[in-house]
Structures are given as structure tokens and as C-alpha cells.
């Protein structure tokens, strides 16, 4: 099966003015972008800066030629937006530069922003607990499939080989695992 990179289709559609396609991209990357910029700016500003980064990305999208992955390009815009935000706020930018690839790897203990709000982390902590509990409650074959996919980053073909089952079965197991986790977290994130 010749799989396609979903981002490529979405970017092509968004470049033609398809706002819904850009919405799908925003929904895909928003949490990672907010997390990324929150290493530069306060929690209070992180969402505004992330929002501004997406707006800038949309404006610049027609110039995106696909020389790099979309998310690399987007993260670079997000980091520049965060740095500009700091300059505008007359604050010193981060003392050390962070490479886009490295930025994703930083954990919460390496936050560079100086304003933390306990309220902000409460929902995330609750989500983490809920997701962990939902996964631990899964049947073994679903737990293995979703773990190999999400944490190990294996493709369906590789998971099929590891679990000694057809690709269709892997696809079904991953879906069922996600549906079960979704049931648990939906009440937490819906208004």
C-alpha cells in the first residue's frame, strides 16, 4: 500500500485556500506548538503566541515548498514568534538556543519560562492520569499495539511483524485502543 503523508495533502489543500484543511492541521499540532512556545513564554501567553504562530504560518503557507516537513517549518515559525514576543515584552530571550528538533525532546523540568500556574497543569496532570489508567485497563493485545505505535513509533507493518498478525488486525487493535482512551478523556476535554 502506498501510504501518503497526511500533512502533504492538507498543506496542498490549505495552499489553495481550504480553511478546513488548515483547521485540521491546527488541531493536529496545536498542543505541541503550545508546549513548544511555553518553554519561552509564560503559560499565560503561550496560547496567544501559539495562535499568532498559526496565523503567521497560514499567511506564509503559499511560500512553503515542502523542502522540509511541515511540522519542522511550523515549529520554526513558532519559535521565532515566541522570541519576537519576548523582545516585544522587553524581556531577555532564552539564554541558550534550542534547535527545533531538540525542542520537542525537552521535558517539563527544563522549562525556560518563568511563570508557572498550578491551575494550568491540573488538567494536563488529570489527562495524563486518565490516559495512563485507560491504557492499563486495555486488553493485552490492544495495549501492546497502541504502545508500539505511539511510544515506539513503529509502523503498522512493523507492529504486524512484532505481534505476528495481519496489518488489518493491527489497524483494528490500534483503533479500538484509541476509541477506549477517547471514551475516558472526552468528558475531561469537552466544554
Amino acid at each position: 500500500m502506498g501510504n501518503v503523508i497526511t500533512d502533504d495533502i492538507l498543506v496542498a489543500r490549505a495552499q489553495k485556500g481550504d480553511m478546513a484543511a488548515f483547521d485540521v492541521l491546527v488541531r493536529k499540532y496545536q498542543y505541541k506548538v503550545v508546549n513548544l512556545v511555553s518553554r519561552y513564554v509564560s503559560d499565560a501567553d503561550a496560547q496567544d503566541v501559539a495562535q499568532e504562530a498559526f496565523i503567521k504560518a497560514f499567511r506564509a503557507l503559499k511560500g512553503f515548498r515542502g523542502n522540509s516537513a511541515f511540522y519542522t517549518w511550523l515549529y520554526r515559525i513558532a519559535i521565532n514568534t515566541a522570541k519576537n514576543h519576548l523582545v516585544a515584552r522587553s524581556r531577555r530571550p532564552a539564554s541558550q538556543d534550542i534547535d527545533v528538533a531538540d525542542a520537542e525532546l525537552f521535558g517539563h523540568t527544563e522549562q525556560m519560562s518563568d511563570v508557572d500556574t498550578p491551575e494550568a497543569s491540573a488538567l494536563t496532570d488529570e489527562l495524563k492520569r486518565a490516559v495512563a489508567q485507560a491504557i492499563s485497563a486495555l486488553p493485552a493485545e490492544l495495549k501492546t499495539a497502541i504502545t508500539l505505535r505511539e511510544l515506539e513509533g513503529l509502523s503498522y507493518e512493523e507492529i504486524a511483524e512484532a505481534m505476528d498478525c495481519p496489518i488489518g488486525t493491527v489497524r483494528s487493535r490500534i483503533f479500538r485502543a484509541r476509541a477506549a482512551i477517547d471514551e475516558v478523556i472526552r468528558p475531561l476535554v469537552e466544554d
Partner: protein
Amino acid sequence: MMDEKLSALLDDELDQEAASDCLDRLSRHISARQAWSRQNLIRAVLKDQAGRETVDISAQVMVALRNESISDSSTGRARVLPFRLPGIPRQQWATGLAVAASIAAVTMLLPVFDTPDSVPAASTSQVAQSTDSQAIRQVALERARANAEARRELQQYLLDHEAIASGHGLSSQRAYMRMASPGAAYVTYSPEQ
């Protein structure tokens, strides 16, 4: 709704045709996009890539971009800033924004439905000379009833939104309308009047 294809799309495990079909469905259905958001949130949480703030900002981004395109088409220039109302918690104003947009739409639609009762009567009199005057009178009567029913439904719609507004810290529709179009004068329904 979450389904197997959407799950496979998340993993880039669909071929071109299936991925395009799935993306078409995402574009059409907000529930599918919401499921997409949640699945990406789960992924971010699992990979420890979710920040301390996990509020969905996609609605604000799209509102800002739509405002930009409106501004572009009307003035030829635009300066888009992150969309946020001062002094109101983000989730409250995001909900309020949706309500305000709904009320604005209803307010714009009101004149369409709020046809004076004399209009159907006048139409009736103009065609009463025809031999089918009785049938036309009946049509006009039904139209007047439909208009009255539409007015009732719209009034109920506004009252429902009034209740939602109260629950989100804005005291009335008037506050929403002021928010949507500052400086404009409004005459809105008030239960006290």
C-alpha cells in the same frame, strides 16, 4: 466520530484515495474534527508533548483567520492579533463568541421572517380578482401562520441563548451584540419589558 480510517489517517497509514476521502469527511463534520483533536491530544500526552495548557485553540485561530480574510477583502490590508477578550477566562469567551455569532446571525435574519401581517393580506387582495382567490387566500393565511411560527421559534432561540449567556458570565444578549459590533445601537427583547 472516531473510526478506523481516522485512526489510520492519524498514523499516515492510508493510501492517497482513502486519505483524501477521510480528509473530506474531516472537513465536513465538526464531530470528526473534534475526535481528531482529541486523538492528537492523547498522542501529545503519551509522548509528554502536551504543555501545561491543553485548551483547544483551533476555534480562535480560525476566527482570527476569517476576520483577516474579511479585513483583506474590505480594506486591502490586515493586522491580525490573537483573538482574546480581556478579563474573561478563555473557555468562557470562546463559548461566548459562538453564542454571539449565533445571535448576530439570528438578528440579521429577523427582518426576513418578521414580515408584517399586512403583506400576505395585500398579496391576497392583489390576486383576489382571479377565480382562485379562495385558494390564494388560504395560501396567504398559511404563510402568515408560518411567519408567526418562525417568529416564535426565533424568540425561543434568543431566550435559549440568553440562558447560555447568563451561564457564561455575560449578563445579556445585549452584551454579546456590543461585543460583536461595538458602538452600534440595539433594541433587544427583554423578559422584564
